[in-house]
């Protein structure tokens, strides 16, 4: 066991300074921050691990190896390690109230393409309803031969599919239309998550109710306080919409619509109505609040686009990023994510000089339509400043545009669907800042 002792404050500060000498950059500052926080906390329990970190390093026996660990089912549903700090975060001034707001996924801390259910970004229009699945029903009615009411057990009897698909809020990056504003990847791109979803294809349910020939649109409605509602064209419903109850191997999380949600792959997230209680088939769209007042795109001529469903091809470098600066000179793997609402990612290029010259990257093993796709460029960094960018191309041949191209066409007030090439300024110290090149 570690020897317990209570050092005097000067001795502790000296120990922290000694430990910090061997470090550089953010690592060193983070260490100092931790040490100083421990002093401020006036807790010897907090201080000792900081001051004595080397006690667990070779050649010493690590403290955790010197006694028995926790046994099975001590935590029947496990937690991440206490040393991890994986959490959704928000920017409180963006909205008036937490029940009608947004939080972002910590993309800077994630591995691979699957977003853990607990940190999938949140967007509510009236908070999370506490739905009892035994008392939840899906009603399908309107222009149908056989209006149906379905229980959760009924729904699970239908043929099911499991698909890995991203969900993105169309306002992702929307705070950056008129200038660089957010100082972290989590806030510039974190309204984005990717999960495996399990459910029944909506086309299967529509066969069951029998859509009448004049049926062209579907109103999807949630059981939340906002009664969230969107009009979905029948073509999408017959193409790839699923009605999902599963997420990453378990039931949907309440935050993602427990017990039942719509999922419109590749389309703006709000169309994937959560806590789904009703589908009405009609001959025209409903033009509800979330498809007129909101989620329409104002253009410079004062006119607006509506039913801007697709999330166009986009990408971002996730390492390095403001939260994950470069710590060491020499070899570095530049990593990032690309996605397209129109299908598969075909290629991703990376530029180190603000888009003057570009290099091809290697895609990850899983290249799935309408899912996050990894890319990687192995290179060297020797302290030179970078203007680091990524540019994705999808299977339709669409090339992710520059910010200037988007602004020239759409101005600065359309809020939604900003999918332009993003720029990180990597400085000589390895720190990373969000910048825009105009």
């Amino acid at each position, binding site marked *: 066991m570690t020897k317990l002792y209570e050092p005097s404050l000067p001795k502790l500060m000296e120990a922290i300074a000694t430990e910090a000498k061997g470090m550089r950059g953010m690592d060193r*500052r983070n260490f*100092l921050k931790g040490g100083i926080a421990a002093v401020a906390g006036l807790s010897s329990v907090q201080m000792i691990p900081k001051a004595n970190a080397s006690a667990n390093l070779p050649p010493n026996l690590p403290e955790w190896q010197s006694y028995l660990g926790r046994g099975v089912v001590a935590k029947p549903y496990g937690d991440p390690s206490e040393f991890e700090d994986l959490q959704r*975060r*928000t*920017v*409180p001034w963006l909205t*008036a*109230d*937490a029940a009608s*707001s947004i939080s972002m996924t910590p993309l800077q801390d994630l591995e691979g393409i699957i977003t853990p259910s607990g940190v999938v970004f949140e967007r509510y229009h*009236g908070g999370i309803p506490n739905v009892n699945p035994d008392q939840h029903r899906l*009603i399908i009615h309107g222009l149908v*031969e*056989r*209006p*149906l*009411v*379905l*229980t959760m057990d*009924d729904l699970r009897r*239908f043929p099911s599919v499991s698909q890995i698909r991203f969900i993105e809020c169309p306002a992702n990056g929307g705070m950056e239309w008129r200038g*660089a*504003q*957010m*100082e*972290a990847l989590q*806030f510039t791109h974190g309204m984005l998550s990717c999960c495996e979803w399990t459910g029944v294809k909506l086309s299967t349910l529509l066969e*069951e109710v029998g859509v009448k020939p004049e049926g062209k649109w579907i109103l999807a*409605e949630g059981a939340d306080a906002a*009664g969230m*509602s969107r009009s979905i064209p029948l073509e999408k419903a017959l193409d790839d919409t699923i009605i999902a109850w599963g997420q990453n191997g378990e039931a949907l999380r309440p935050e993602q619509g427990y017990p039942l949600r719509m999922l419109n792959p590749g389309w703006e997230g709000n169309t994937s109505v959560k806590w789904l209680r*009703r589908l009405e088939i009609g001959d025209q769209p*409903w*033009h509800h*609040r979330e498809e*007129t*007042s909101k989620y329409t*795109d*104002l253009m*410079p001529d*004062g006119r607006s*686009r*509506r039913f*801007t469903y697709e999330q166009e091809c986009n990408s971002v470098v996730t390492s390095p990023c403001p939260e994950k600066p470069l710590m060491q000179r020499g070899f570095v793997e530049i990593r990032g994510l690309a996605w397209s609402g129109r299908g598969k990612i075909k290629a991703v*290029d990376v530029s180190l000089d*603000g*888009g*003057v010259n*570009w290099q091809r990257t290697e895609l990850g093993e899983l290249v799935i339509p309408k899912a996050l796709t990894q890319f990687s460029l192995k290179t060297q960094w020797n302290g030179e400043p970078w*203007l680091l960018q990524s*540019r994705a*191309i999808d299977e339709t041949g669409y*090339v992710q*545009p520059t910010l200037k191209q988007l602004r*020239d*066409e759409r101005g600065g007030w359309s809020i939604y669907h900003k999918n332009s090439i993003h720029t990180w*300024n990597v400085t000589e110290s390895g720190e990373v*800042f969000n*910048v*825009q090149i105009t």
Partner: protein
Amino acid sequence: MFKLPNLAVAAAAIVLAGAVQAGPLGIGSTATPEMIAGWDIDIRPDGMGLPPGRGSVAEGEPLYEAKCASCHGLFGEGEGRWPILAGGEGTLDTLHPEKTVGSYWPYASTLWDYIHRAMPYPAPQSLTDDETYAISAYVLYLNDIVDDDFVADRESFAAVKMPNEPNFYIDNRPDVQNTRCMENCADPANFTIVTTINGVTPTGHFKEDSGVAANHYGDSEPAVKAVEVAMSDAATAGKSVYDKACQACHGMGVAGAPKVGDASAWVDRIQTGMASMSSNAINGYQGPNGVMPAKGGNMSLSDEEVSMA
């Protein structure tokens, strides 16, 4: 005509329903007209879904002031970051577009649908059809869309035309075309690098010298939790009512609402006595320090529930 015993009518109906219901997989039950009627609340621009009933601008004014103004402002100007409902005409093609019901919304039906389905914010689907007509009429009046003698009903409401309706068009993306240039694609001499403004985003979770904490809405919880520690049964019941009905304004300080845990804001109010505070919470308050709608805009709460909270 001949008469059938009631039982036979019911049996015939079941046979008929069974014949209609046979979907390919035969899963699920028939959604009855009664079930559908209870949930089918949507309204369309062609008037489909608008119920019988009526409400005038004059009837809408006191309802709006009691149930809507604490967030949206007495004239629809919006409190804090709550939505602005009125004004903004002629601003959509300027550098400061203001998107309101009058300047932006393409259809009046959306107003009726949304007010009925989701407003007042803490008490959705609590308004009667007549109240919804009246408040919708008043919001249209605040935007100079209708005159002060307008009475909204199924016919008159469906006939309202919104000025911005012609200015919406179907998504025409992809609207920009980039090319996959690999070398000498831009001239760095033309680059202007625009940096972020420090301090507008929470960065405390990764920067030690940030003036802004990595805060999230959850950070306001401790003030409430501290209250929870020594709560009586009555207070626990009050907490549940608070969470459902009061927190939206008193958690954020909307419309001058004193925040939970803000001792200085509450001290003068506490000195007026519990009876006075309960009375304000039940009947509403309008004064120099702010406005509070009666029962926080949630008339489904009993007086007892409000007092406990």
